[in-house]
């Protein structure tokens, strides 16, 4: 393990950014989101959750796929280059790291999404333990330990020191490039980190959602859950916006669109939301015609369909962003609780 004084972090960032791109939480107009580091970027490592999850680093909100150019009657097609430069994403939380694992299941499964795969290959994740988890967090429910993020490098911020522990080869390689600004940590430091970890775990225990039960949610309950009358009630306040999906670290749906540049067409993909009325719109019309169906889709996918296809892995990581951001105060926790309550009533 290594350490670096908080006040020297700028030197660390400068060093990393000198060799490759560096994404980290940056405050812009009062809000913290992952962004590219620059000398005048306002880095914010204290805010627990970025508004958007950092999934953009691997699966950007929109990305070009290829460009058609028209010259007279001649048309040429230029595929977008795959990511070729290494980059570092610093400050991801354990839940967001799990989010990337979820995305891996989707994009790295056959057929592999080459754009995503290239970014994964070139990206090194430096995760950070959650110093002060909040009431909307429920990562524990999904077996995530926010005190011990599983990334290429794990870090802890304990008072004025950042502790740095490479966990993978990529992590080691990155560490080598920045060794000059790191100090080796001693036993006392190890102890401090352990103390921090147990403090974090202690807080997690006290969080209101930590004891949420996922009992009854798995790949085998498809029709039972699907046909539940509860959905008809639960969806009612839903405004059909895409806030939950766009702040979510695991939502992976996208649409492919064409943009007329005047001298050709750019084909790009951009995030889509199953909450939108034109989601998966096809020539014949829409698969899901009501907001209830769309609402149900999102939670069924996270808690039933995805585990059914991925060895029981849920595609929710308990980051709690949707809990905080839904304009109508709806969220996956309320859904889980509602079914729990109904189950309890039934029993």
């Amino acid at each position, binding site marked *: 393990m290594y350490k670096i004084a908080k006040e020297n972090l700028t030197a660390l960032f400068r060093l990393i950014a000198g060799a490759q791109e560096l994404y980290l939480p940056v405050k812009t107009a009062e809000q913290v989101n992952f962004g590219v580091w620059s000398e005048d970027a306002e880095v914010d490592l204290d805010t627990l959750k970025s508004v958007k999850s950092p999934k953009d680093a691997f699966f950007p909100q929109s990305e070009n796929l290829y460009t058609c150019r028209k010259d007279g*009657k001649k048309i040429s097609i230029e595929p977008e280059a795959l990511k070729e430069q290494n980059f570092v994403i610093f400050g991801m939380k354990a839940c967001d790291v799990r989010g990337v694992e979820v995305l891996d299941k989707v994009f790295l499964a056959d057929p592999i999404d080459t754009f995503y795969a290239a970014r994964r290959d070139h990206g090194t994740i430096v995760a950070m333990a959650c110093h002060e988890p909040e009431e909307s967090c429920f990562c524990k429910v999904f077996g995530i330990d926010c005190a011990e993020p599983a990334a290429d490098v794990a870090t802890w911020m304990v008072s004025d020191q950042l502790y740095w522990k490479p966990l993978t080869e990529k992590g080691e390689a990155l560490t080598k490039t920045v060794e000059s600004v790191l100090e080796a940590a001693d036993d006392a430091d190890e102890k401090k980190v352990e103390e921090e970890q147990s403090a974090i775990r202690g807080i997690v225990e006290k969080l209101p959602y930590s004891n949420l039960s996922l009992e009854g949610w798995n790949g085998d309950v498809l029709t039972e859950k699907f046909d539940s009358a509860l959905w008809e009630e639960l969806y009612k306040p839903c405004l059909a916006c895409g806030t939950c999906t766009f702040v979510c670290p695991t939502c992976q749906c996208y649409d492919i669109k064409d943009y007329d540049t*005047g001298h050709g067409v750019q084909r790009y993909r951009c995030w889509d939301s199953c909450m939108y009325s034109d989601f998966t719109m096809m020539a014949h*019309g*829409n698969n899901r*015609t009501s907001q209830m169906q769309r609402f149900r889709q999102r939670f069924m996918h996270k808690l039933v369909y995805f585990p059914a296809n991925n060895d029981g892995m849920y595609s929710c990581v308990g980051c709690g962003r949707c809990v905080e951001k839904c304009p109508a105060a709806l969220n996956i926790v309320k859904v889980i609780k509602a079914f729990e309550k109904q189950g309890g009533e039934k029993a």
Partner: protein
Amino acid sequence: MQRIGVFVCHCGSNIAATVDVKKVAEMALLEPGVVHAEDYQYMCSEAGQEKIIEAIREKNLTGVVVCSCSPRMHETTFRKAAEKAGLNPYMVEIANIREHCSWIHKDMEEATKKAVILTRAAIAKVNLNTPLKPGESRVTKRALVIGGGIAGIQTALDIADAGYEVDIVEREPSIGGRMSQLDKTFPTLDCSACILTPKMVEASAHEKINIYTYSEVEKVSGFVGDFTVDIRKKARYVDMDKCTGCGVCQEKCPSKKAPSEFNRGLNTRSAIYTPFAQAIPNVPVIDTNSCIKFKTGKCGVCSKVCQAGAIDYTQKDEIVSQKYGAIVVATGFDTIKLDNYDEYAYSQSKDVITSLELERIMNAAGPTKGHLERLSDGKAPKEMVFIQCVGSRCADDRGKPYCSKICCMYTAKHAMLIRDKYPDVNVTVFYIDVRTPGKNFDEFYRRAVEQYGVNYIKGQVGKVIPQPNGKLLVQGSDLLDNRQILKEADMVVLATAIEPNEGVRKIATMLTASIDTNNFLTEAHAKLRPVESPTAGIFLSGVCQGPKDIPETVAQAGAAAVKAIGLLAKDKLLTNPCTAQSDELLCNGCSTCANVCPYGAISYEEKEINDHGIRETRRIAVVNSALCQGCGACTVTCPSGAMDLQGFSNRQILAEVDAICR
């Protein structure tokens, strides 16, 4: 995908001299949907149109772009050609590469580049065109003529003679207009009243003509073929049916101090009056501003002396609502106010007068019974000076920028008449140019100079100074002799500029007819459609369209009548198919569109809708395409884009924008 043919016109050298037409055609072929492109000398010619027809047939074209002059010129021509070939006429678009390109640019490369872009925009639009079919609307077989001067009378007579009902609305108590105030007319010198009054009588006696005098147009709604007009008949306080026109009331009226409008305020009239002896109708009106009964409640002499019992002090304005198929504007002119021309001392001396005042002085029924005399002292003048272009051809905004056209001729007339009747009077005319185009006009002017010895001086008058001895000192210059002139005159006559009558702007607004900055109504085309307003169903007669003399006015009045008759002769009109349409799946039923529709063409209905499987009853907007005129106000006010305009759809216009900006 459309199959578009592009036809590039050379317009002789009008386009081809500045635009590389071959290049335009060649570039057009690169655009999506274009399967045919050619250029030709004159696309609008019979042979040119034949080329379009042939290409449509041979290449199965579904859309046509003609790169030529303004669509305001030949859009109809090319649409008709397309129709001949079996293509819907609304699948034709024009790229205006003449007025908007070749005529304003000098550099060939630049103009060609622009022409290519304009063509591209038209192609982009045609790609989204859909066939449109005009609807039908009915024609009310009745015409309205606004203004009862010689223009209005002639138009009304011609329309009525063709067998259609005509109403004349005249603001004054009698028809007759400006011409009734004139003494003699050029170049024949015949008596104005002698040729006008028979026309007035004919109009009033015509069974198809109905005259509303002392009336004004209050409100106009509707559109070509189906206008609804409210006419305000102002209270005359005299019963038209009972009055015999004996004139006793006017004689006995104790209030005789009101300035006579007809005599340009040079003398007075009674409070109850007919403007002039030959007035039609010969029924007086009471001017409530000078009537003692109306001002004090006492008097009532006219009522007492009227044998017919026609006086009715309780009469009220009346609104008559009538439908018309066509409207002719013949609102005429007045002379400008001379407030900006103080240097000519018009306001300071009674002996400085306008030409129209001189007409009244020369007229036997005028304030001086036809004797030429100074209004200040009644003495006969010896030295008269005429000043031309007072307020006309003015470079600054003191006066009018245009030539009033009639002044040179009437001044020659006045000079000639004075020299003829009073050979001892010297007449001097200061002019900038003498303009006498017209049949027998220049001959007329030369007679004034050569035969009658009128002294014409090329030069302007700087100042007219009233002298203590009652004379007027005229300071002018002689540009030909290059000298200053100081001349003592007994009378000075100002050839005052004419301008469209006050209130014409209000009428133009009601009719939605175009009007220019000088308040002359705009014609649909300066050369080819000079008597039509751009607004369908509105025709222009007389000076309201531009300065003209009597024969021109009468000719134009007839032309306007013919245009109106051409419209009234139709039973049905094809309506513009470029109307708004509401997409019922997108419509919110919010009524915002109806709020901005000037024609009341949008209504709402509850309708069973199947929106991608969701069935519900919704309130949706419905456009009455017979009423819709296609302005598009509703399309922009509609937030969801449910309302769109056929022929100018959102996507068509955006495609043009894209094509231009790329």
